[in-house]
């Protein structure tokens, strides 16, 4: 355990009266807490999908292991007054619709913590970098709060709290951090954040301060051979910060954020005096849960910080490292878990459920827990309307996968259908012979000739408007003739698909939407019966029988003429 008893002594040496006053105002009270930080549960994406899944799983496992370790600590008799999480859940990377679900998961984990009070503050990965907005983080905290049961959950940056006579403060470091390539933070916002802390420090009341990003050099970023500071304060803010640090009531600053210190640096008090004569509150940096393996290190520095603070000014800090096997090779069935999650994201829920089921057989508790959660989730999703009516249908999945192509094809088809549907002139299909020797082809020719003659006669009238809105109004088109069929038959195959057949089928479908005259012919040229139906897509607009029931028999030409005028009248003059 690293202890910092000398700090109080130093203070006595420099300002003995103050310490006496501090010590004398109350009996010495003690607060013990566990600080966990930088879980990075949701912001592991960026590399290969499976690596991201594995990292997410690993980080979840680290969080759960930490909670287990904290509980073990509590169970062994160590009193933990609160557990503080100093930022970087990775909330900013969550999809809007996933916030509540993920918050509930974390809430359930926090509910297992054997401490009545849980304090949190946001990290830089919890707020949107571009806008600095913390709406998502607030909603996330609300979700956790709803799932932690009777435990108290406090956002320290919004509400300081007092534990055993020690004020616990929070500093939102979002405005203080150095930005690479972005606009510098405004001095006013920096001053506001620091002033808020300064106002929270009460005279004669011991306080500790938690923040996410510490005011130290960033070992990962060196420019001109020197490490750059993680903070980038304006001169005014810098002075204000120095003033905060100089408050004798402030016993220490606790932060996270740094992933690459190496085990020897976490938990060590860092002097923030920057050469000033007066001693200032020291800084402790807690190790992250989502750890990077430092160069040359055997295992990554993953763990949590335990600290005991007394109102007399003593601060002791101990780091609990998590077992290295947590970060060794992925546990068994991890690949099934990865697969399950991939399937789940693609809404292939049956495969996801199967993979989760296999992962349930894992010997690793974390994998089993994740698999159980996923298994239940996929079962629930399969009962949802989205699965029943959308995702479970293969064509819909195909459309989703090729949305642009599907949209273009749909629009094209709709356009063609609309074009066919709104064409005024009917198309004449191949007539049906109701008797084997019915002169169907001849009937069609006579029918077309009669229509042509009618149009010719009507067109000759110069007052055409009175008898026809235009020649096209009584035009009837023939069905594609044999040469076109031959042409289609001879189209090559592409990718195993016979283009001719495809085009012919498409034309048939389009013709179905068009107005069409279907004819059935019976009898002979001297005593002929013709049946006609004018279809428009699914509708039968008119139907005729020539000769009509009760009429005298008709020869082929007379019947064809009658049918022609039936059609013209129906289409134009009704």
């Amino acid at each position, binding site marked *: 355990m690293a202890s910092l008893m000398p700090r109080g002594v130093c203070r006595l040496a420099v300002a003995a009266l103050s310490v006496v006053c501090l010590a004398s105002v109350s009996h010495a009270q003690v607060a013990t807490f566990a600080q966990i930080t930088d879980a990075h549960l949701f912001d592991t994406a960026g590399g290969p999908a499976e690596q991201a899944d594995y990292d997410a799983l690993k980080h979840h496992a680290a969080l759960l292991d930490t909670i287990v370790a904290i509980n073990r600590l509590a169970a062994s008799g160590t009193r933990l007054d609160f557990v503080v999480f100093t930022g970087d859940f990775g909330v900013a990377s969550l999809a809007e619709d996933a916030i509540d679900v993920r918050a509930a998961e974390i809430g359930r984990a926090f509910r297992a913590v054997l401490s009545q009070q849980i304090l949190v503050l946001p990290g830089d990965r919890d707020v949107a970098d571009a806008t600095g907005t913390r709406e998502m983080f607030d909603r996330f905290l609300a979700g956790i709060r709803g799932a932690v049961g009777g435990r108290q959950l406090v956002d320290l940056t919004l509400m300081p709290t007092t534990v055993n006579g020690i004020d616990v403060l929070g500093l939102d470091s979002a405005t203080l951090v150095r930005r690479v390539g972005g606009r510098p933070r405004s001095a006013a916002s920096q001053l506001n954040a620091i002033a808020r802390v300064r106002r929270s420090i009460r005279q004669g009341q011991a306080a500790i301060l938690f923040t996410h990003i510490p005011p130290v050099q960033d070992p990962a970023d060196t420019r001109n051979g020197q490490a750059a500071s993680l903070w980038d304060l304006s001169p005014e803010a810098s002075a204000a910060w120095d003033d905060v640090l100089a408050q004798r009531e402030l016993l220490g600053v606790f932060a996270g954020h740094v992933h690459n210190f190496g085990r020897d640096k976490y938990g060590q008090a860092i002097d923030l005096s920057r050469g000033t004569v007066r001693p200032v509150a020291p800084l402790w940096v807690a190790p992250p849960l989502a750890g990077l393996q430092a160069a040359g290190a055997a295992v990554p520095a993953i763990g949590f910080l335990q600290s005991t603070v007394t109102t007399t000014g003593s601060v002791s800090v101990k780091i609990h490292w998590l077992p290295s096997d947590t970060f060794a090779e992925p546990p068994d069935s991890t690949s099934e878990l990865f697969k399950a999650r991939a399937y789940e994201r693609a809404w292939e829920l049956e495969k996801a459920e199967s993979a989760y089921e296999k992962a349930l057989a894992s010997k690793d508790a974390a994998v089993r827990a994740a698999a159980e959660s996923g298994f239940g989730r996929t079962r629930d999703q399969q009962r949802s309307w989205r699965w029943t009516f959308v995702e479970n249908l293969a064509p819909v999945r195909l459309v989703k996968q090729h949305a642009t192509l599907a949209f273009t094809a749909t629009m094209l088809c709709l356009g063609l259908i609309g074009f066919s549907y709104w064409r005024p002139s009917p198309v004449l299909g191949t007539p049906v012979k109701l008797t084997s020797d019915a002169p169907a082809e001849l009937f069609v020719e006579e029918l077309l000739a009669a229509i042509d*003659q*009618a149009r010719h*006669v*009507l067109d*000759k*009238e*110069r*007052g*055409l*408007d*009175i*008898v026809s*809105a235009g020649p096209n109004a009584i035009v009837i088109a023939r069905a594609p003739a044999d040469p076109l069929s031959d042409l289609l038959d001879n189209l090559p195959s592409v990718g195993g698909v016979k283009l001719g057949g495809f085009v012919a089928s498409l034309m048939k479908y389009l013709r179905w939407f068009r107005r069409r005259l279907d004819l059935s012919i019976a009898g002979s040229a001297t005593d002929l019966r013709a049946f006609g139906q004018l279809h428009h897509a699914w509708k039968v607009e008119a139907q005729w029988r020539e000769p009509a029931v009760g009429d005298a028999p008709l020869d082929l030409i007379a019947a064809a*003429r*009658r049918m022609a*005028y*039936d059609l*013209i*009248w*129906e289409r134009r*003059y*009704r």
Partner: protein
Amino acid sequence: MSDRLTHNIRSGALKGVATFSGPRSLQYFVEGLDALQAYEANPNATSLKKAAEKLGQCDPADALPQFYLGVVKTLEGYSGVDEAIRLFSAIRESGPEFLRVPAQYNLAVAHVVRYRSADFEIAEDLLRQMKRNIDNTREPTAEQHALKAQVLALLAFCVVRQRLWVNRFKTDVDHDALFEAGGTEALSLLNEAERELESPGLTEADRNEVLADKWNVRGLMFEYRALRETAAAREALAGEAIAAFESALKYRRNWIPGLSNMARVYQDVLGSGVKAEALWRRVLTVRPDDEYTNYRLGRLYEERNDLATACAHYVKAPNIPEASARIEVLSPQLEWWQRPSRPGSRSSS
């Protein structure tokens, strides 16, 4: 004077939507219209008969076939003109809006074809009313210009007929004064009609019809003057009249008014029965039962003292009072000549 095609139909004045009560009515209409178009291309009795038959089979509730039936009935002459007047009157009063003006014009034509003084007065009223309506139109269309030209030409004919023609044999009138008044008004109307022809958008057919009317009216005026002159001048004026009618026939082939008027000049003014008969026969190829032609042929045969043939023609003109009167006069003579006991009786064939 008896015939006039319905110019306005050909001038495209009809703008509207026609409906038919059923496909059969439509079919008969198209078939009738086809026959009418064949008649116009080559006027003949067969086509006209077929047109009348087909249009007559159309549903009477369909206005458009009824209008065309009226046209056909007008073309039939005396025998059909009463029916034509009934049809056009009905359409003018209660037919579709787009047919009412054409029906009014054709009603005037039909009254002209009936060729009675009272009918001419009705026709003149109808035509003057149409002229006023068109004159009141702010921006007449090409069709209205064409219609106006036709109205003016027909009105000129009515003026000549009523002011001059009915008085041609009267002795108690001042013919010079009549000619001065009637001729001047008719020529003024024709000049106005010709000015209308200069309007843009008129077709060759529009112009031909009006020009045929113009020369026909001028021919009638020459004929009227010829009847007043002595032999030499009479022959010269008759030649002018014939030249005018020939000009009219250049614009309208086999036009019955042109043929009839020219035949009458040959018969009455020049006394050339052979040329007159040839022209009357030509009229009969177009309209075999034309009553006026039969009446004139009756007169011709009567002049030749072929009373049987004359009577045979007179009986084919039952609507012409003069023809009936001649039968009354000729019947006793015919019976006397045809008595079997009388030697040397002639055959009337």
